[in-house]
């Protein structure tokens, strides 16, 4: 029998048992849809984490005082561990893989404007702070070097703070906001960043010169961390060693002493975070894959039932000239149609489910074409693989026995 006729015969056989065909396909439909959705979710969460980490800064490194091995991060607990503006200057002049560096100090408190007040965090940085942290100024201007060094009472406001104190979308540039009772003139508004990977609202900030925060708010001379940008992602490891060398010297550490500071890079953060989502993706994909396998076994089961049910038909087809290969192909095509058609529906369903997850989570979910092609290929293989044994049995029946079968 030629292929066209074989396909027609197979379609007719499937149509004759519509409900059963559908239920058989359901296993594949669910399997494929979940594979596609799971991989899309995995990919989406990974992408969203990468985006968020990228939004934290550009090729960023940062130094914090203390050492993990000394039991947690002990910020500024003793004089020798403190980071200073001197450390910042040493890094700036000596580390050529670092293209931007800024001190960072921060304090939490109430921001007040008129009758409105809002609890937020003020960050103190230098002129390069915005660049390192990938902040954009959408209105107004950045802090100047002289403001940074001269403890000027100026600040930039994040979108959330601006919205809460001045109203949705209002541009408060030129207004004065009080933070812990210190008046700050608003010189600019920061562009929106959204949440970071820990779920914090990154736009809930004020940014002021570090000297102002140090002297007027915290009354301290040391800084809480050093923020830096490496020249490129590739050079962030080099930058890390350079910074380590410089700080060990400025902190006067002997050969056998451990670092009294920690250097972290955005690279590291990104790799740890994405490796977590990768494991998650593999796990989800594997579970979905198992459901696809179960769907395949369902097809095999139904094909065996179908072969038994149609034993007399097989005998009849043989008696009028059907060869073994004709019978084999007839059943094989039936199972391939079941799995491929189920796969197609599953792919559509997978797209739909991914869109729903995207709408619910606002992750940038994207169905990978690779996973669609993979799902389709797997379905065809499942059709052939799980259809083969039942079809093989059908084709090896003895026509006389088959015709006599009750």
């Amino acid at each position: 029998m030629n292929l066209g006729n074989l396909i027609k015969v197979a379609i007719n056989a499937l149509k004759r048992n519509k409900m059963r065909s559908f239920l058989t396909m359901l296993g594949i439909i669910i399997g494929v849809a979940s594979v596609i959705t799971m991989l899309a979710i995995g990919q989406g969460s990974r992408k969203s984490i990468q985006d968020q980490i990228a939004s934290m800064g550009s090729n960023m490194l940062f130094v914090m005082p203390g050492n993990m091995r000394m039991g947690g991060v002990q910020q500024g607990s003793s004089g020798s561990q403190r980071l200073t503006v001197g450390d910042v200057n040493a890094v700036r002049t000596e580390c050529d893989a670092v293209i931007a560096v800024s001190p960072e100090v921060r304090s939490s408190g109430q921001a007040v404007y008129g009758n409105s007040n809002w609890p937020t965090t003020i960050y103190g940085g230098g002129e390069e702070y915005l660049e390192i942290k990938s902040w954009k100024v959408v209105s107004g201007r950045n802090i100047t070097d002289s403001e940074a060094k001269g403890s000027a009472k100026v600040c930039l406001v994040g979108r959330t703070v601006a919205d809460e104190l001045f109203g949705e979308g209002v541009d408060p540039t030129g207004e004065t906001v009080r933070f812990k009772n210190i008046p700050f003139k608003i010189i600019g508004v920061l562009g929106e960043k959204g949440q970071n990977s820990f779920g914090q609202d990154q736009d809930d900030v004020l940014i002021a010169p570090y000297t102002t925060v140090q002297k007027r708010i915290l009354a301290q001379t040391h800084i809480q961390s050093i923020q830096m940008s490496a020249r490129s992602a590739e050079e962030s490891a080099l930058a890390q060693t350079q910074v380590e060398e410089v700080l060990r010297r400025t902190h006067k550490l002997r050969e056998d002493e451990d670092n009294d500071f920690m250097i972290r890079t955005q690279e590291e953060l990104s790799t740890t975070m994405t490796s977590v989502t990768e494991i998650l993706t593999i796990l989800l994909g594997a579970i979905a894959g198992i459901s696809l396998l179960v769907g395949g076994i369902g097809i095999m089961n139904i094909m065996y039932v179908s072969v038994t049910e149609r034993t007399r038909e097989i005998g009849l087809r043989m008696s009028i000239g059907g060869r073994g290969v004709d019978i084999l192909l007839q059943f094989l095509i039936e199972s391939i149609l079941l799995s491929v058609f189920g796969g197609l529906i599953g792919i559509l369903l997978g797209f739909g489910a991914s869109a729903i997850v995207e709408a619910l989570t606002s992750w940038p979910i994207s169905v990978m074409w690779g996973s669609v092609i993979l799902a389709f290929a797997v379905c065809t293989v499942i059709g052939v693989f799980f259809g083969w044994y039942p079809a093989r049995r059908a084709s090896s029946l003895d026509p006389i026995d088959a015709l006599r079968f009750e």
Partner: protein
Amino acid sequence: MKAIIDIKSLKKDYHVGEVTVHALRGVDLEIRQGEFVAIMGASGSGKSTMLNIIGCLDRPTEGTYLLDGVDVASMSKNESAMIRNLKIGFVFQSYNLLSRTSALENVELPLMYNPIIKARERRERAIAALEAVGLADRMGHMPNQLSGGQQQRVAIARSLVNDPVVILADEATGNLDTRTSYEIMALFQELNLKGKTIVFVTHEPDIARCMTRSVVFRDGHIIREDEISNRLYAAEMIKALPVEEE
């Protein structure tokens, strides 16, 4: 007339576990073109075995078998399938129509396995075969919408559609009442008059007397062969039946 079927010292053994069943123990049989042969005998005497071998569904253990001048006893499975497709028409006791498949499609089926015949010719020949068995008005019907006699007519049309050299029927009237049996016999006789060679297994003597020759089996041997002298005509036998009550 030339011999369509030429069988010499044919034996068929079945092995069931340790036991060997001698279903045919040395049969010589020649059937010429245009004959209408009744194969008779008690149950288990080897009639079906004989018919299956004639139809290339089964292979003899020993002996020679020429079908239409070709040695078919030692063919491969695929070659046998092709012979069945081109030269044989089967009619079974239980019709063996595909369910939920129209009469026309059932009749088309054998031609589907012949790659030379295209869809159009297939359809035309199936229509002609259905017309020949008097079912021109039932082509779109499904088997469950047809009576037993009509279903057997569809099966006969299916056996005719490939224009076989011989039609083989195994108790083709076995499931039918007397009147319908005669109607089916009348159809077979009509086909035979048009020149079809038919081999028909039956154990009903009146059915056998509609044919041209009878061959009687017992325990795997042919014990009698007779030309039928005063042949009956099924069409007349129907008229002789008592009128059915309305």
